[in-house]
């Protein structure tokens, strides 16, 4: 990829990266600040969040892992 091409995709890349990072940060923070989960344990959810494609990891955690409040 040339510099020109990279410059061209930056308007897409930057928002995507920012959104992904926020999502990841919020999810990891939630996992680490909570002791109990509906299912699974802390290690499992951290792994799921990190390896989950795009946004699937965080969503799986918030749907199936997060304890009801």
């Amino acid at each position, binding site marked *: 990829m040339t510099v020109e091409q990279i410059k061209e995709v930056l308007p897409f890349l930057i928002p995507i990266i920012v959104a992904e990072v926020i999502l990841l940060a919020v999810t990891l923070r939630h996992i680490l600040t909570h002791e109990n989960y509906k299912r699974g344990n802390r290690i499992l959810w951290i792994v799921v969040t990190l390896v989950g494609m795009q*946004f699937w990891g965080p*969503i799986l955690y*918030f749907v199936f892992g997060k304890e*009801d409040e």
Partner: protein
Amino acid sequence: MRQLTTFIQKEFMEVCRNNKLMICTIVFFLLGIMNPAIAKLTPWLFEKLSSSYEDMGIILTDVKVNALTSWEQFYKNLPIGMVVFVLMFSSIVASELERGTLINILTKGMARWKILASKGILLLVMWTGCYFLTYGITYVYNDIYWDNAIGKNLFFSALCMYLLGVWLISLILLMSALANHGTGVALGTSVVFLICYLISVIPNVEKYLPTKLMECSQIPFGRGTPDDFTYAIVIIILWSLMDVMIGILVFNKKNI
């Protein structure tokens, strides 16, 4: 009226404080930006591919990318958004039933239909916001990089998919009155959708079914006109209203 506004307020506080609002926003934001991004990257991917194919003696012609490539992605990615939405909100009533949080509210004299109505309104607002966030982002990017004018009836076809989401919400509400667990609600909603999808192989029935609206993704390409969808639109609206009404009647007589 005050009961209704109070409970709607409570529902919004809930999605704000349990992160669901933020997650939905991010996911639908990503879904929106992904469409033009993939369209933009397509020529580059082809270039990569064709150079490796050239070694094998196959020549790929250059691909032309325009706004329609991005709109095609939009309709391909939307079902993902719908799955996420149903997954996130299928237990919106069930989780309260499972935990018993509604008992206090009901013994305070809350009218039962207002509970279902508040949740319906929240889901509708969330879906509208999320859906048009995705639509808006795709539209704006497309307009900057290419030209949206080549797509026919863009907004109408987007509206069809939006209605499909509204129908799913009404199914969530109905299933919430019937089932006691979130999984039951998600399963029930998916089964109804699947049945519609399967029945739609019957040629004469197809145009009356809500799943017909999935074909609206073809309108921008000039395949099919809005008129083809009249029956499906009328039916999906009536069906949704019926779901909510039956849901309320069942919920009124539910042992909580």
